């Protein structure tokens, strides 16, 4: 318990350093562009495959579980859209990104710590916490919502492909379903959640990487811890945000 409180305190102290005024805005700008490319482009392929097949599977499972004649066929498209926009794209994809981006950040920052690169930055008078972590957070806040919208589109597309090549629904009914009772707030709600998750999946791994001590084994441990705690935090924050925004 004491360790947990110590870690939470240390995490917020680190964030306090991260959000100090940058020394050289131009250098930070370049870092943000670099991080956007590194975090964003590197994840597109994985997100595309997962989203497409999840959309297809959700459509198949919804169709196979609806056997009441009282439920219209377009409910399949509706259920796919709602589950993808409200939960699968923002939450599940961010959990996947926590694994991919999170472990990458923790090991990158951790390696910089044990090879004294962070000390080198400090010696130069650079606020190393801000220089290394702030661009990652800003880049994630900018790029992760785009990835999530991309995931939503591909998920619905996966369902559409299934609807096209199976006999339980028609494309027309699927398209009616994905448009039925659509409100823009669903997208806004998903993007609000995404912004919180983007912050979590960059700041928590950065914390574990920044304070790593020892060698390669500790980097591995920090990487694992960062994924575990980012995922748990995402799930807790997801519950709180859902309660606040939808209830």
């Amino acid at each position, binding site marked *: 318990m004491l360790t947990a409180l110590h870690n939470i305190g240390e995490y917020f102290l680190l964030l306090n350093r991260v959000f100090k005024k940058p020394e050289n805005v131009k*250098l930070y700008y370049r870092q943000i562009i670099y991080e956007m490319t590194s975090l964003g482009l590197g994840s597109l392929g994985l997100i595309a495959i997962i989203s497409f097949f999840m959309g297809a599977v959700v459509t198949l499972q919804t169709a196979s579980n609806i056997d009441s004649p009282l439920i219209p066929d377009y409910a399949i498209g509706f259920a796919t859209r709602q589950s993808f926009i409200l939960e699968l794209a923002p939450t599940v994809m961010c959990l996947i990104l926590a694994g991919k981006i999170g472990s990458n950040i923790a090991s990158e920052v951790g390696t910089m710590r044990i*090879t004294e*690169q962070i*000390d*080198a930055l*400090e*010696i*130069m*008078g650079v606020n190393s916490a801000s220089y290394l972590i702030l661009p990652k957070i800003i880049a994630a806040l900018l790029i992760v919502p785009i990835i999530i919208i991309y995931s939503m589109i591909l998920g619905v597309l996966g369902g559409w492909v299934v609807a096209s090549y199976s006999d339980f629904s028609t494309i027309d009914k699927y398209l009616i379903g994905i448009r039925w009772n659509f409100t823009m707030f669903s997208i806004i709600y998903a993007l609000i959640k995404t912004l919180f998750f983007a912050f979590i999946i960059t700041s928590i791994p950065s914390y574990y990487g920044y304070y790593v001590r020892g060698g390669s084994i500790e980097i591995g441990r920090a990487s694992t811890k960062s994924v575990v705690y980012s995922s748990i935090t995402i799930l807790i924050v997801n519950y709180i945000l859902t309660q606040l925004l939808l209830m």
Partner: protein
Amino acid sequence: MIEIKNISKSFGSNSVLDDISAVFKQGEMNLIIGSSGSGKSVLVKCIVGLYDVDSGSVEFNGRDFTKMNFMQRKSIRAEIGMLFQGSALFNSLSVEENILFPLKMYTKQSHEEMMERVNFCLKRVNLINVNKRFPAELSGGMQKRVGIARAIALNPKYLFCDEPNSGLDPRTGILIDNLIMEITKEFQMTTIVVTHDMNSVMETGENIVFLHHGKKWWEGDNVEILKTENAELCDFVYASKIMKKFKGF
């Protein structure tokens, strides 16, 4: 000149440095030596402010570094260059970008002026045609040279080197030591080198501080060290059996 007064540092209940005072002179090779775990790297990290001291002071030409906040320390840090044990080059940046980094951070020079400085620094450490290469593509000795080039990019008044020849063969190690010495004399820097390599000590030690169990045990130069009767220092200097035999122990 750097003057440290009564520095003590502990990590929890483990006392690492105990009441250490010393003066490191400008234009001289000041060496901090001692066996592993004696506290020499911690002492240097306390001097440059990577660790806060528990008590005592560190003065850079009379300016007390320990009493300064982060922003006040920045002005002194712009005058400090440091070569790390593993070179600590930024892996994602090329050699040129590594040396440009402090220049971009601290100066308002044009790109051409900065490139001129980068090329001067690389030439000064006898490296050519490596500008676009990445640290992973360089040998250990070349990485150390790039580390030195980056450390002198801002024309520092104070140069710190943490075990500059560790991991290098004796010949390359001596070349690096001589390079640091030449640069120290040429730019009249206050240079502090942490080492446990006796070749370095004999080659370059003008002012040597010997640490033992976190305490300053002995101080002198590379001539006096051979004549010392200090038991712990003799044990460090003449560590091998053959050297002990040579000394007549």
